[in-house]
């Protein structure tokens, strides 16, 4: 069994519901997002905007697992890569090693509350009890492992039964996200990947991500990319700020 996700790029309507659902599900501090939306313009004179809903790829050969010196980051048997915040020492090696930049170090300034210095909402108070986020450690998407585990314990099927399915997948109003077992050739995710030529981000890193994308015109492995043009003079890096 290996849990995976398929993101249909042609269906995403850029509503950010997946980000909101994740924030509510995991009581995420204001300064961090586990899933993120990457939007980009394509098409020169008549540009259209394409959107990628991205999150930790739960890589099969995860660089973050390889470098973690404490054993805090591990890959479960079902393929989900998790961080045990009680073991994490906050060295950030995993943050730097993730080639997809899907990890966040939770520093104090990222967890100042929704209304810093004014009021702590009931939602935040509940979060402190139900889903602890430890400042000084690292976080990332875990495919809602707690929902998967609780659902499986009840005999439910992740990807089919809502109670056992990741919050972002349940919430997506455009049905752009599909979840299921990549090892099962009859699962919906396997069918979509097979029939719609699903592709992974940066396969050249040999990380074998469990998140696939379909129906996108950009980034498909058989399309030429700017990066492939050896003669293009790159600009200096925009230093990210």
């Amino acid at each position: 069994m290996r849990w995976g996700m398929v993101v249909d790029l042609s269906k995403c309507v850029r509503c950010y519901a997946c980000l909101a659902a994740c924030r509510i599900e995991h009581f995420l501090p204001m300064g961090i997002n586990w899933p993120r939306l990457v939007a980009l313009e394509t098409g020169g004179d008549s540009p259209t905007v394409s959107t990628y809903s991205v999150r930790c790829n739960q890589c099969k050969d995860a660089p973050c697992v390889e470098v973690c010196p404490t054993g805090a980051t591990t890959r479960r048997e079902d393929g989900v890569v998790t961080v045990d915040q009680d073991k994490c020492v906050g060295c950030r090696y995993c943050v730097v090693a993730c080639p997809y930049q899907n990890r966040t170090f939770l520093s104090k300034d990222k967890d100042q509350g929704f209304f810093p210095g004014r009021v702590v909402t009931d939602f935040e108070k509940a979060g402190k009890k139900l889903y602890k986020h430890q400042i000084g450690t690292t976080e990332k998407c875990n495919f809602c492992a707690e929902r998967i585990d609780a659902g499986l314990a009840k005999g439910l099927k992740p990807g089919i039964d809502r109670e056992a399915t990741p919050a972002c997948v349940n919430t997506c109003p455009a049905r752009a996200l599909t979840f299921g077992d990549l090892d099962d050739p009859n699962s919906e995710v396997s069918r979509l990947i097979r029939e719609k030529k699903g592709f992974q981000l940066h396969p050249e890193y040999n990380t074998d991500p469990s998140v696939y994308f379909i129906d996108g015109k950009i980034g498909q492995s058989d399309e030429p990319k700017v990066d492939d043009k050896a003669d293009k003079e790159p600009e200096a890096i925009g230093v990210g700020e």
Partner: protein
Amino acid sequence: MEAHQWMIHYTRQTEWIDRRGIFLWIAFYAGGLGGGLYLVSLYFNSLWGMLISWLIIAVIKGGTHLVYLGKPLRFWRIITRPQTSWLARGFIFVMLFVFFGAIQMALTYWLPGSTAEIVFKVMAGIMAFSVALYTGIILKNIKGVPFWNSTLLPVLFIFCGLLGGFGLAVVIALNGGDINLAAAETGSRWLLLANVLLIGIYLWQASAKENTSKQSVLEQLRGHSAPIFWIGIVLLGIVIPLGIALAGLIMNHMSSIVLVTGVACEIIGGLALRYVVLKAGAYKPLVAKPQ
């Protein structure tokens, strides 16, 4: 940067250089400098050099790296897992160096020439070399940052550490320490030339490798890191020490002030090198831009 451009361009790593990442930068440099100085001190059999290198690694390297951790009190989790990663091994190298080095210095002071002293010198020497080396391996192993992903990087860090070590050996010699000044100066000159060569090859191969590492090189040569590259590495780290070395060769004598200035410039150059290497490390765009 516009919101819609986020992560469709080259993105530089920030965690290991910005804000508290400064501690990691200092830790990485101190590891190289301390390790290099210890090896140079072994060559000169200088107890002063050994003591200073021990302090650099135990206090500056160990201290700043611990301070950098989000949960420093859990550091024991790192040192009990050498099988996991080079970061864990690095912490162990530091601890073993501190342990072996302390015993070795005591033996050198009270039982010089004894077999035990030689054994501990060898063991502390291996650990010092490993401390200077491992930070380069840590960066080299990160395949998402192509600029770092080169076997030359650990070599460059070792040579940079040795250069700093010879520089500090000159200062110890000038202060009447147990080091031959002329030999330290000669070593310093050769190491400087080797470093210039290595930096040149490193940048050349990084820019020839692929576009993201070429971006990193451009970032140093004409991007935001350019002032640190040109002033810190080229002017202070190379041109001034080379000028002083050449003048020393021609005039056969150099005043202490000038020599110490040269060493200070070399150390600033080494710090600047680590800084720009960390600062310019960049990831490929998450999704490729359309043509």
